[in-house]
């Protein structure tokens, strides 16, 4: 239970096409993340799956059943929103139980399921409170609890961590990962944060301008980006893109090398350059170089290194980790 199939989903608002034919298959129990820059259509796609937006054309199947004409409440889904979207006038317990109550479940069953979900999320002390009396992190746990209580076929998360502060974000991320393991449920998660995508996903779907750029596991996307967009989007700091002509490569248009795949030396190397800025992060040192061959180059060194602005250094790329892209921005293999 809990598979999803999308076939050529299109969505237009007036003349503006937001989704340009999305095909996707999600297997039971998978954790799939839609990631992309803002305005790429990832939230709209999630809303189409949920039934909150009608697709202009295409088909949505949950567990092999066409649901394009089924109202959200009957699709067997639960959704967690960025703004929590808790009912302000209901207690935590009623917030979590409302969906089941609407389905006509007996009170004892609702109580049991709410108790179980609140146990999983350690929400028991707050059951009688109203959302206004909770902190942001607690509210988001209640929203997740409300989704769990429904025992859905599909969990949908719409940027659930974006309103939380950094420390809470890490904790809640762990909690979601733990939930996915213990519930073994299918989860679809939307984010613009590639760290969330890389840490949580079994499968990442990179979207750009209403189209899927690449689907793959986090490491596939990192190691084998299909095009310059994915290469630039996954990984931080961003991959360096160098005009292939400058390196004497006539076949490719662009060559990409990640900042962590470059070594530095003061004595010798391939590309001579001058340090223009240094960022010391403790675990990493990030240098920005202006080299004669490549222009601006970002280099990431592990650990602490002492370099100063205006130092002359030599950068050497790990040629095995170079990515070559053709004139259509797709990778050359």
């Amino acid at each position, binding site marked *: 239970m809990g598979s999803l199939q999308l076939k050529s989903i299109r969505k237009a608002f007036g003349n503006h096409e937001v989704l340009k034919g999305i095909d996707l298959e999600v297997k039971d129990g998978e954790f799939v993340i839609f990631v992309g820059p803002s305005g790429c259509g990832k939230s709209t796609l999630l*809303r189409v799956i949920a039934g909150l937006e009608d697709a202009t054309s295409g088909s949505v199947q949950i567990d092999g059943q066409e649901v394009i004409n089924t109202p959200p*409440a009957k699709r067997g889904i639960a*959704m967690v929103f960025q*703004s929590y*979207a*808790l009912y302000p*006038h209901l207690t935590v317990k009623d917030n979590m139980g409302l*969906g089941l109550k609407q389905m006509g479940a007996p009170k004892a069953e609702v109580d049991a399921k709410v108790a179980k979900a609140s146990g999983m999320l350690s929400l028991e002390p707050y059951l009688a409170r109203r959302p206004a009396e909770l902190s942001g992190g607690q509210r988001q746990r209640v929203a997740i609890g409300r989704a769990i209580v429904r025992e859905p076929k599909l969990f949908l998360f*719409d940027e659930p961590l974006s309103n939380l502060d950094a420390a809470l974000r890490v904790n809640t991320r762990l909690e979601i990962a733990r939930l996915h393991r213990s519930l073994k449920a299918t989860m679809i998660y939307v984010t613009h944060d590639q760290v969330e995508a890389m840490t949580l996903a079994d499968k990442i779907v990179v979207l750009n301008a209403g189209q899927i750029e690449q689907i793959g596991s986090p490491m596939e996307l990192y190691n084998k980006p299909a095009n310059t967009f994915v290469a630039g989007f996954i990984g931080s700091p961003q991959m360096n893109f160098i005009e292939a002509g400058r390196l004497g490569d006539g076949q490719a248009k662009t060559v990409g090398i990640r900042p962590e795949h470059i070594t530095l030396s003061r004595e010798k190397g391939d590309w001579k350059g001058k340090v223009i800025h240094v960022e010391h992060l403790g675990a990493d040192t990030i240098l920005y170089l202006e080299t004669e061959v490549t222009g601006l180059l970002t280099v990431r060194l592990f650990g602490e290194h002492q370099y100063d602005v205006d130092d002359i250094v030599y950068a050497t790329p790990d040629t095995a980790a170079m990515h070559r892209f053709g004139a259509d921005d797709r990778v050359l293999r």
Partner: protein
Amino acid sequence: MSKARISPLRSGFVHLALAGYTVVALFPVVLTIMNSLKDKNAIFRTPLALPTAETFSLIGYTTVLKQGDFISYFQNSLIVTVVSIFFALLFGAMAAFALSEYRFRGNTLMGLYLAIGIMIPIRLGTVAILQGMVAAGLVNTLTALILVYTAQGLPLAIFILSEFMRTVSDDLKNAGRIDGLSEYAIFFRLVLPLVRPAMATVAVFTMIPIWNDLWFPLILAPGEATKTVTLGSQVFIGQFVTNWNAVLAALSLAIFPVLILYVIFSRQLIRGITAGAVK
């Protein structure tokens, strides 16, 4: 330290302006109540003086209450006002919800059309309204007044409420849809409680013109059984002789019900504002 924030001169002016406005706003009310407690000679001789032991008289109030039907005038006014507010708020909120929540062809046009009523006074249509009421057999009924006042209240209600409803989070409504709430349940149980302060504002703005209106009661429901307070008070105003004691007493009495309604709504208003601030 900002000089503007502590300047006593500046805050003095602010208080002066506020005090001035308070005096201007309260003056007619105080004058009415004061003079309603004096005898006829005192009203004309010293209209601005407080009632003294000599000039104090309740003759106005006894006249009004002896007139007998005044209780029923009050009742009529209250029924018309409360029912009209109820319908204006209910239908106004529903229309505002539809305009702010659903995308449909002609949405903007419909919004403009419904807002036109703010700019064009309903009284321009009096003749047509009267003809319509005659044809419908509704002349001299409270229903006629309620219908007209509901129509009169709708444009402002829709205009203000649709702006407020746009601020209610879409996620909240969508969460309701996923939990299986019907559109009506989303409207009544999620959206209405959140726009309560706006509803109170609209109620106050709608209520006062209805309560004070003389025009439509005079035209549509001048019969004895359907007279409102404002119309009822007119019996004391004659072409040659006016019973000022009674007029002033009737007006003083007419202030209180509307004052009570105002207090009820304005407390809602304040509660709504603070609830939003704490969240």
